[in-house]
């Protein structure tokens, strides 16, 4: 189950400059774990643990097929072969 994960400029130091990497897993959480084995350090930039509970960092937005995962189950959002995960820093609009 290959999931494409698009990495923002600011995190490409962990992916040797690659814009896009692939991960394996049935949930976003598993994909991030898999990314961590190939790109050590990246997980800590995406996820933080508060009160023993893992969650996305405040200024990190993650989208599965363009939908914000905070509204689809967070780190437990299920993913399947061919899905695209996009990671972006939160920025202002207006």
């Amino acid at each position, binding site marked *: 189950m290959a999931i494409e994960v698009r990495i*923002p400029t*600011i995190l490409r130091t962990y992916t040797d400059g690659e814009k896009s990497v692939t991960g394996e897993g049935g949930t976003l959480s598993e994909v991030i774990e898999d990314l961590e084995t190939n790109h050590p350090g990246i997980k800590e930039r995406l996820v933080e643990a508060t009160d023993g509970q893992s969650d996305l960092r405040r*200024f990190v937005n993650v*989208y599965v097929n363009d939908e*914000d995962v905070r509204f689809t189950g967070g780190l437990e959002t299920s993913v399947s072969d061919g899905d695209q995960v996009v990671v972006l820093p939160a*920025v*202002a*609009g*207006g």
Partner: protein
Amino acid sequence: MKFDSLLDTVGGTPLVGLPRLSPSEDVRLWAKLEDQNPTGSVKDRPALRMLVEAEKDGSLRPGATILEPTSGNTGISLAMAATLRGYRLVCVMPENTSVERRQLLSMWGAEIIPSPAEGGSNEAVRVAKELAAEHPDWVMLYQYGNPANSLSHFEGTGPEVLEDLPSLTHFVAGLGTTGTLMGVGRYLRSAAPHVRIVAAEPRYGELVYGLRNLDEGFVPELYDESLIDARFSVGPRDAVRRTRELLELEGIFAGISTGAILHAALAQAAKAVKAGERADIAFVVCDGGWRYLSTGAYEGTLDEAEARLEGQLWA
């Protein structure tokens, strides 16, 4: 209709059915034409309300200087209102915004301080906060954290849509300052709690996300994620495609961010059709296409338009 002044014409915009874009008799799309506000964008509502509230609480006194970080529309709205009420306006605006927006701001009498393209509106906010510290006598209304922003939609946009369309099932709007969705969302949560509140946010080119570190990220102080049900990221290609469809099929000449919102609205419509459910989906037309003509989004192929928008703040 007769009004005492231009400021009295803000709000009360038409809600227009879209018979050709709606997938069926049971699943219908409705456009809230916010481009029909006096300066041509939805931002007239929060801008005027922020100004009025600041006058009421005494923070804004005659002859004062107003400061605001803006990618354009809020600044243009504030400039009009400030001129009519006798204030000076200084706007901090990212360099990568359309030339029309800069020209309009100047025409309405605002002074523009450019902020670096890299980092987009985040940089504008940062620069404005620095200026505010240097000029304690200036009044920063600060659309990202000012409750009067969402209040204008809580008392205006939300009730207007529900009154015109009591059968409303979905409300879809853009996510920038989050003011529209927070205000309408809060209103509908109590007045029509079954309505699904859907956010569409523009996905820009990489330049705009070029922060030096993740801690420089920005979430508007107004944002409360419990007031929305889904949030979609829409890139320039889909936004331009939908902007053109809205023009070709329904005759509505809207700005590019409206295309992004329509894209999310059509996804909700497709979902309802698939589930065999009835739906009345209202979405916001934020502004007209006029102030984006120079971006090149309205001519040539989608590939060409997408390439031209790279690095621009198109919403």
